[in-house]
């Protein structure tokens, strides 16, 4: 069983390396970074407790929000999804991404205390 999982995984990774455009890989790297940061924050909280709770929340939500916005951006600039986003150009997607981030940052910094 494990061998089949491993083979599926290695096939998936190979396929990913081959067929994904570079732009998307850049975004994927960014998403991975966000994910790791969020996971580390959560781990720290589990370890030492939730004081100060507001700081933890804002940091964690910042990671979650950034991840979500990143995923949105990736979906929107993926050429394979062009049919669904006819009126939305990648530039526009990026502009939306930046604007949403500005608001997210504002809220996070407000809450971080």
């Amino acid at each position, binding site marked *: 069983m494990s061998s089949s999982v491993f083979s599926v995984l290695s096939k998936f990774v190979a396929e990913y390396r081959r067929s994904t455009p*570079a732009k998307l*890989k*850049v975004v994927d*790297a*960014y998403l*991975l*970074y*966000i994910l*790791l*940061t969020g996971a*580390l*924050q959560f781990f*720290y909280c589990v*370890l*030492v*407790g939730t*004081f100060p709770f507001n700081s933890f929340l804002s940091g964690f939500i910042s990671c979650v929000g950034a991840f979500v916005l990143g995923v949105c951006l990736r979906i929107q600039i993926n050429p394979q999804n062009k049919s669904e986003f006819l009126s939305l*150009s990648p*530039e*526009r997607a*990026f*502009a939306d991404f*930046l*604007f949403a981030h*500005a608001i997210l*940052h*504002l809220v996070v*910094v*407000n809450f*971080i205390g």
Partner: protein
Amino acid sequence: IFKQFNLNIFTMILLALALGAQALTPSHHLSPADLDRLKAFLNQPFTDLESAYYSIVGLSKLGIAVSDEHAACQFLKSQLDPSNIDSLFFASEASQALSGCQIPLSNETRDLLLAAVSEDSTMSQIHRSVSTLSSLGLPVASQEVVSALTTRITKEDNVLAIILALQTASRLSQQAELGGILEEIEDLAARLDDLGGIYLQFEEGLEATAHFVTAAYALSDHVDIEPPLKEDQVVQLVNSVFSKKSWDSLSEAFSVASAAAAFSGNRFHIPVVVTSQGPAAVSHRQPMLQLQVTDILSQPLPSISVQVESAHAVASKSVVLSQAPFTLRDGIFELNFMDSQPASGYYQFAVAVTGDSRLVANHVEMKVKVSTEVAINNMDLSVVDKDQSIGTKTTRVEYPSKAKTSFTADSHQNFAMSFQLVDVNTGVELTPHQTFVRLHNQKTGQEVVFVAEPDSKNVYKFELDTAERKSEFDSISGTYALYLIVGDATLENPILWNVADVVLKFLDEEIPSVIQPKNLYVPKPEIKHLFRDPEKKPPTVVSNTFTALVLSPLLLLFILWIKLGANISNFSFTPSCILFHLGHAAMLGLMYVYWTQLNMFQTLKYLAIIGSLTFLAGNRMLAQKAVKRYRPGC
């Protein structure tokens, strides 16, 4: 045991029932002071014909005349309006009460009055016209009136109207058929509200109740048939009418005066008021029990005799007196109770007033107190040794002198006192309610009070065990003045007697501390506020480690990006491009400044400025990029 218990319960219930069934006696009546107040209130100067009517007729019912009869008559004549039935009623009734006052009469007046007697007039109009006709001496068609009244009763089925019907019927000829109207008295009596078994009144109020009394007795006297009112109801009506001692209006005072006259002068029920002259107490100095027996107007009742049916002691229930008559002297009924040689205490008297078959509430229960003087005999003081129980010396002290020597008692000895309390006049031993022994320390002001108890032979004994009682004295040794206090409700001479001085010696004497008065108003100790303990923070090492750890993925990101070949080689140095990047960097910088220094409002202000700049620049830049994308090689 249970049988005895049940028997006791049974007798108690019977006793309770018997006591409850005792006759009700008036709790309110018109005392001479109340009567004077009522007369003064009625004797107001006249404002109009109606007030003149109330004053004149009310006072005449109480048996006195208005101050100036002639002026009153002139007033009536001047205020009279011959075309108004009410005006005629007030004037004619009032003129009847004055002597030598005649109201002028004309044919029109008579016709007006006769025309008012019909089924279509209101009850009030019928009542007033019939009364006017009768007081002016004019003939009245009684049967017509009766039928009109009967019709109006069914139409105006309220209490006040029926009372007026009763009053009207009492002015008619005795040959008329008044039976139907007479029955209304019973119906009205059923409508009275019983309040606590003491008061009986209409919900319409005092005036209605008083008018009912007047009307019922007026009609009953007229037809010579006893009204269907039970004794208790009569007494309850008396209570209701006379419970109010100051009256709001002339009409109210008038109704009370009429009711008072009815209660004291009718042919069937005369309520009796028995009050004692002063407190109901006798003693050797005051051996006479004095009673006043009057009607509710506080007037003496002619030809009555008063006697004690039975008198028994409350405590022992033994009958002391039976069928003893009171003697009448100067309007007061007297009885020399001390002749029966009663012991001191309380006695329950059952007094009966006889002589007139009309008397109501003529059996009265009263409590009489017999007081006496007490003497202290055989006051013996001694100091007894605890071990040997032999009195070292017994000193006899005579009241009211004080013992010449003081007594000393320490922890091995007891101080003992014995005495007898006897009635001065009869020599019988007494057990008053209060027999206290008070020890007073003159130096510290401390006092301790004990109770002296009688033994089976009614000899009072008091023993002070110095060792046992030292806590009451706070172990303060010294000279204490000993007082004997004797008191009771039936004693005329309560006693406070400084019998002797006692020197008490206690072991473990504490320094006599002056008793600190509790000072409640000094500043209290300050309460220090305890702030909430700050939460435990993890050690700095851990947080620093994790900060580094959290920043590490950034490093990974850059590595990945480089590996992927992300670069900024396509960076065009267009102004909008530069401006966009600068603006974006400024926004991020603003976030940092917001975290450290600014508040939301300031941040929003700056953000708006920078944001709009960035947006414009960015829009430009992205548009250029898009164009470049569609036209490669530009």
